[in-house]
């Protein structure tokens, strides 16, 4: 497994503590490369699960592989999939953004309000983009410049942005958006069978995939997730990159807000309330480490296929809907448990083979 990571305490500890401990890990430099190895294996497993879900769907319903159903599948999970992409980069960088669904809700409320005030659609889109950027920037500055933990900051803005949505729109519901927009929930892109949200997801996945896996910025995101101090000493502008990630997340979530509003033809302050948990669930299912430094976009694509496919297949098979939460929740638990179980086993085995007392800091809980 990854002996270098075993030496690290779980994340969340203040930098002063981890810095001293990380200095004791001699193999930190090769961490980046070895970090990708288990991720690759995880994605192989995920691909098998994705195939299994498709086979399950095909076996239980003759309707599973129809274009109409594919459309439904894509349209119902589109926003979750889109918001999972920036979330992936943020989690890999060692942070988290729990305000994503609230930004979506705030954007939806703003869209509804401005439309009811007869603003032209183009101007509304500009406002939404600015709103998303500002919301993300606020998160990012609190995390990087003020130095607050992102978990606390974004739980705060989760409430704050949702509250602003309520202030913008009150208890009103705005619907009856103009014709081409409000049909995206039922009509595919002309001459195709693809919903708009799926195409947007594929395009964004390509962009995020290239940035994460093929650019210096992408490598720096892994580096700061694996060790913020090492990344800082390596000359990476950790704060700037992280702030940018939060801004991008805000922008993408604001765009998802427009998709959500048009798809349901409804702007209401509580749109997509609680959806952040589904987004985080998909990202974790993708094999992205909640401690940062590990994960890939292809994993997210596979996780989206598993998530959307499973939900849809269970709907088609008259499966008790109350129990789908158990299935998706169980899958998520397994996805967190399996890599850690392997790590625990690896540690225990390493301990048995070495037959000598290892330094306590290196074996952690496995020795207790």
């Amino acid at each position, binding site marked *: 497994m990854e002996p270098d990571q075993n030496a690290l305490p779980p994340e969340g500890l203040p930098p002063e503590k981890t810095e001293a401990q990380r200095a004791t890990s001699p193999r930190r430099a090769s961490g980046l490369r070895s970090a990708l190895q288990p991720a690759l294996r995880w994605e192989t497993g995920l691909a098998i699960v994705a195939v299994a879900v498709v086979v399950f769907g095909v076996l239980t319903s003759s309707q599973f592989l129809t274009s109409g159903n594919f459309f*439904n599948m894509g349209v*119902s999970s589109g926003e979750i999939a889109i918001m999972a992409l920036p979330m992936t980069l943020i989690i890999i960088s060692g942070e988290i953004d729990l305000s994503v669904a609230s930004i979506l809700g705030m954007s939806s409320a703003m869209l509804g309000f401005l439309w009811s005030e007869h603003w032209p659609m183009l101007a509304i889109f500009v406002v939404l983009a600015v709103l998303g950027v500002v919301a993300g920037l606020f998160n990012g500055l609190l995390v990087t410049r003020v130095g607050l933990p992102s978990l606390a900051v974004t739980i705060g803005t989760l409430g704050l942005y949702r509250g602003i949505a309520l202030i913008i729109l009150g*208890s009103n*519901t705005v619907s009856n958006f103009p014709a081409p927009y409000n049909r995206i929930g039922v009509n595919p892109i002309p001459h195709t069978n693809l919903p708009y949200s799926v195409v947007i997801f594929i395009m964004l996945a390509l962009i995020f995939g*290239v940035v994460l896996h*093929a650019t210096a910025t992408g490598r720096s995101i892994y580096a700061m997730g694996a060790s913020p101090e090492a990344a800082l000493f390596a000359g990476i502008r950790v704060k700037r990159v992280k702030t940018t990630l939060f801004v991008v997340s805000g922008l993408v979530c604001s765009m998802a807000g427009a998709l959500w509003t048009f798809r349901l033809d*409804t702007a*209401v302050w509580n749109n997509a309330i609680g959806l952040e948990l589904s987004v985080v669930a998909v990202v974790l299912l993708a094999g992205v480490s909640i401690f940062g430094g590990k994960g890939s976009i292809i994993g997210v694509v596979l996780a989206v296929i598993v998530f959307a496919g499973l939900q849809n297949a269970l709907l088609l098979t008259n499966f008790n*809907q109350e129990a789908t939460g158990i299935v998706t929740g169980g899958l998520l638990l397994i996805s967190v448990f399996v890599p850690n179980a392997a790590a625990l086993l690896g540690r225990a085995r390493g301990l048995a083979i070495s037959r000598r007392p290892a330094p306590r800091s290196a074996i952690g809980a496995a020795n207790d």
Partner: protein
Amino acid sequence: MRGSVKRALWAPAVLLVASTTLAACSSSSSTSASSATSASSSASSTGSSSAAAGLKTGLKVFVIPKNLGNPYFTTADSVQSGGALAALSALGESGSETSGTAATPASQIPAIQAAITKGANALIVSATDPSALCPTLQSAMAKGITVVTYDSDAPTCRDMFINQASTAQIGTSEVDVLAKQINSSGDIAIVSAAASATNQNAWIGYMKQELKKYPNMHLVSIVYGNDDPTTATQVTQGLLQHYPNLKGIISPTTVGILAAAQVLDTSKYRGKIALTGLGTPDSMKKFVADGTVQSFELWNPANLGYLAAYAAVNLASKKITNSAGQSFTAGKLGSFTVGADSTVLLGPPFVFTKANISQFNF
């Protein structure tokens, strides 16, 4: 650095494969889409007619409440309570209940889409939102699927709406119920929900009209609890302090009547101030048992579901159309006539008393 180059190439390559697979998946399935449409059109003709009633049997009917795990809809839909599924099985149809777990359009729409995909002949829907469901319901109607709404309407996006109670009947009957309890005289007040609530204000309008029949009953105040238990409790307590001679309270909201009942449930007020309105039997059982509340109203959700099922099967069998004046028989409930705007009215509100309240669990 070789490793990172390999990684750099690997990710977009696999992504490309993945996206082409997705695209292939959708294009290869476009052929089966046409067969799906023909399957659903043939499905509607497979329903065999039972000569006696002129109703088709074997129809696939999906009952789609606002959400699952909601006791109100469990009563409206289930076989045990004699709701929609009981009616469907009695008629020989293949009925099933489906929905999301949250009462939101985003959660309900996938269930509606799945029902359409599964070749439904009829949908019985309680709309989580009047407009959000429209595109999906319209696409169902375009495929020849009968769409009936019950409990909560989606106007212009359905064939028929089964209305649980008329606005006028709720308003007038609550005044009548209270008048009976306080011998048609004394000061009364109303504990409403939000001041802006359309249905509340419409009911209150009919209450004022009905009060003209009772010259000795005086409406002294209307307070607003905003359907929040704490606020409703506070405004009720305020009423009691301001109007010591108060004889009766009407609260046409389930949250308000519960809060008011809790305030009145003390020896000081019990039996001295009458309370009625719209409530759910489970929440009110305690207060009916100890005499704080003699009677209150709501509709019987099981009958609502039962009627919706009969209406849907009659429509899907083309035995009736949805135009005003058409009539049909709904089993034990008797005969119903389609009213204006393709709406069928269940009937006067159901009055819950000590005698019947134990039969209901929602």
